[in-house]
């Protein structure tokens, strides 16, 4: 491009107001980065992703899957034939049912696949936006933001926040500034929504675990509640996951939780310690409940980090300490009311008997 100045009279040239460009950063390398490997990096050195080896286990899983499918097909075929031989009408019915199951199953699989792709795309988007925030670029973010808006709008009503964003942005803002305004106006609201969801689910399951008598039931409860929570959070950020997708999401969240574990443990150490000294004084079951609640809250926060289109900065980072207090308060308040309801009765009885004694004397 020529860098020489040019000046035109306004009438002499066709000038259009700027629609910000939608060209995206060419960051192929960035997108191809393998997420599954441990991020062993130091400055600008980086461990290369491991070459995939043809291993026996892969052959095993493939052949095993093929075997299962073949077996199922054979069984189904025999079942249909058998029912035809009993009665043709029954045969047709069974055929129709099988077909329906097949279609619905494949449909769900494809849909789940699409939705879990959405999550993958979200992770790419995070990286793209991060790159934009670090650069001095201009006019590249609006296209991406529109894409995000389209996804979120299907799940959450953000029209008011978007209107605010539209009002506050101007031509002079570069990508970094636009992203900041977007984060403040639109995403922070979603963050609050997600935090509400987390605190609801976490404290609910904390109470349930504290009250439930069976250890096996505890596990089922935790799995059920946390899966519900993941679904809700992923919806809030506009990348809803169904059963198949949720499986992938759970896996990712668990990996992240593990990877992030060490640093976050340090950050939250004070909080955890406080929690422990508190839980030490109350009963084991209640402490378990609070522990589970905190675990679910941590799962939730990790999910937020995965699903949010932009990564959190230092200030907007959701903190476990905000939730911890809420959870333990909730559990304790319920347990206390239960206890006091129990302990009220004997006292009442005692005073009654005292009265009776006084009367008799």
């Amino acid at each position: 491009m020529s860098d020489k100045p040019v000046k035109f009279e306004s009438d002499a040239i066709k000038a259009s107001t700027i629609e910000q460009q939608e060209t995206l950063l060419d960051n192929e390398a960035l997108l191809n980065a393998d997420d599954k490997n441990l991020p062993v990096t130091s400055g600008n050195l980086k461990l290369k992703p491991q070459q995939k080896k043809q291993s026996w286990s892969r052959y095993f899983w493939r052949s095993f899957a093929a075997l299962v499918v073949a077996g199922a097909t054979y069984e189904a075929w025999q079942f249909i034939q058998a029912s035809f031989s009993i009665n043709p009408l029954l045969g047709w019915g069974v055929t129709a049912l099988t077909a329906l199951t097949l279609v619905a199953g494949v449909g769900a699989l494809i849909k789940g696949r699409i939705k879990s792709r959405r999550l993958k795309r979200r992770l790419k988007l995070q990286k793209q936006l991060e790159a934009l925030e670090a650069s001095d670029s201009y006019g590249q973010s609006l296209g991406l933001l529109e894409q995000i808006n389209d996804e979120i709008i299907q799940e959450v009503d953000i029209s008011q926040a978007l209107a605010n964003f539209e009002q506050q942005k101007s031509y002079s803002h570069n990508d970094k500034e636009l992203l900041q305004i977007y984060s403040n106006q639109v995403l922070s609201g979603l963050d609050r929504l997600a935090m509400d969801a987390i605190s609801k689910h976490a404290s609910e399951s904390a109470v349930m675990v504290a009250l439930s008598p069976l250890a096996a039931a505890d596990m089922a409860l935790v799995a059920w509640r946390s899966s519900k929570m993941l679904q809700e959070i992923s919806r809030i950020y506009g990348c809803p996951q169904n059963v198949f997708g949720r499986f992938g999401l759970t896996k990712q969240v668990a990996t992240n939780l593990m990877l992030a574990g060490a640093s976050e443990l340090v950050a939250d150490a004070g909080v955890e310690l406080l929690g422990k000294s508190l839980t030490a004084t109350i009963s084991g079951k209640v402490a378990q409940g609070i522990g589970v609640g905190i675990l679910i809250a941590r799962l939730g926060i990790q999910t937020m980090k995965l699903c949010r289109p932009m990564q959190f900065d230092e200030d907007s980072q959701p903190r476990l300490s905000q939730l911890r207090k809420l959870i333990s308060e909730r559990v304790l308040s319920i347990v206390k009311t239960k206890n006091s309801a129990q302990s009220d009765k004997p006292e009442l009885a005692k005073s009654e008997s005292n009265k009776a004694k006084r009367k008799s004397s």
Partner: protein
Amino acid sequence: MKQQLKEAVELVERGLDKNVRLCVTGLSRAGKTAFITSFVNQLLHHKDSSGLPFWLSHAEGRILAVKIEQHPELHIPAFPYADALKAIEEEASWPQSTRNVSQIRLSIKYKIKNRWVKKLQQVSHLKVDIVDYPGEWLLDLPLLQMNYQQWSRQFYNWLAQEPQKSLSKQFHESLKGFDASQQYDEAQLKKISQSFRGFLIDCKQQGSGIHCIQPGRFVLPGDLDGAPVLDFFPCLDNVKVDISNTNFAQLEKRYDYYQEQIVKPFFKEYFSKVDRQVLLVDCLEVLNQGYDSYKELQSTLTKLITSFNYGESNWFKRMFQPSISKLLVAASKSDHLPPEQHPNLKKFLSNMLNHSENLVGYQGVEVENTVFSAIEVTQPVKTDYQGQTLICVKGLELDSGKEVVNYPGKIPTQPMTKTQWQQQAFNFVDFAIPELPVGEALPHQRMDQVIQALIGDKFL
């Protein structure tokens, strides 16, 4: 008892109220008046304004009300906010430039965020004093370190260089027949002084790229216009000082008086309690004018920045104890160039002042750079030029009054070599103010970030 409690609460509240003193400076045409007008305007219009997303306490909805208050220092002229705004909104012309010191005080009522302070008090006030003065006056500060002879020597060294050399013919002519050891002659002194002043004014107006003009009051006298203290000029003759009524003795006496009675009190009065300093720089003019102007501006700004010398063991601090904690060096008129080049301009500014900012930063002062426009008068547009898309700015040209679309050239992000400076051409056009809606917040670029940088941290 109740009354006493109320008084105690009031006392605490007064104790918690804060005051920030903001000094705005910059060489002529850097946009000081426009900056202060816009600053005040944005604050006053905070309620209906959606254009301040980066002023955090405003975004949090904690700003309750803002008003202009009369300044308690009644002997200092008030900043003519109303006049400036009238010029901008009604006459669509740039406001009158700064010729003198002036002050304006804003009182901002806000909700307290800090959860400990909140227990004592819900709402607090922040008083912001904005002081406006010509940056040229600041350049007088180095004079305090020199006596008359040293100053004269320095002046004639400076005069031997271009472009000031070619402008000084008339001044040299008026010096003919002057003898410093002669009996003091008021008429002659006055005549030569006037010619000297004329020369300095020429330097300012015609000498493209001369920024460092000393003494500053000779170009912008403020209320000293016509006072005999300004009737002196540098003189190299070495005359015995003890002969008291020679021309030389008289000149020296006036120089000393200028030092003692004009320069020193100015700094003492305005700098002893400054909290935040804004230095506005017009980079665009320098880019238009080329390498020599760049060098000159760089050295002048270095003098300006280091004259707020903040360190512990320097004489300025010992004398006046300034307490500047933050310095914002801002490139104004960002709307004159396409928005995609704003980062380049910021880079250019920080490259230019790297050394001096480093010095100041070393003293523990926070230095920030920004690129902003106090009043946005153009609009970015896209044009096709020679088969390529070019982002330009569209606005009313100040000289011709016609609407133009201007592509000013590309500001490089790396420091340029001297040859590159000569090859690279820029054409930044001065734009006029378009018709603006009366009574609305002025359009701006990044004023919110400037506000946040200057006073944002005071809203606890």
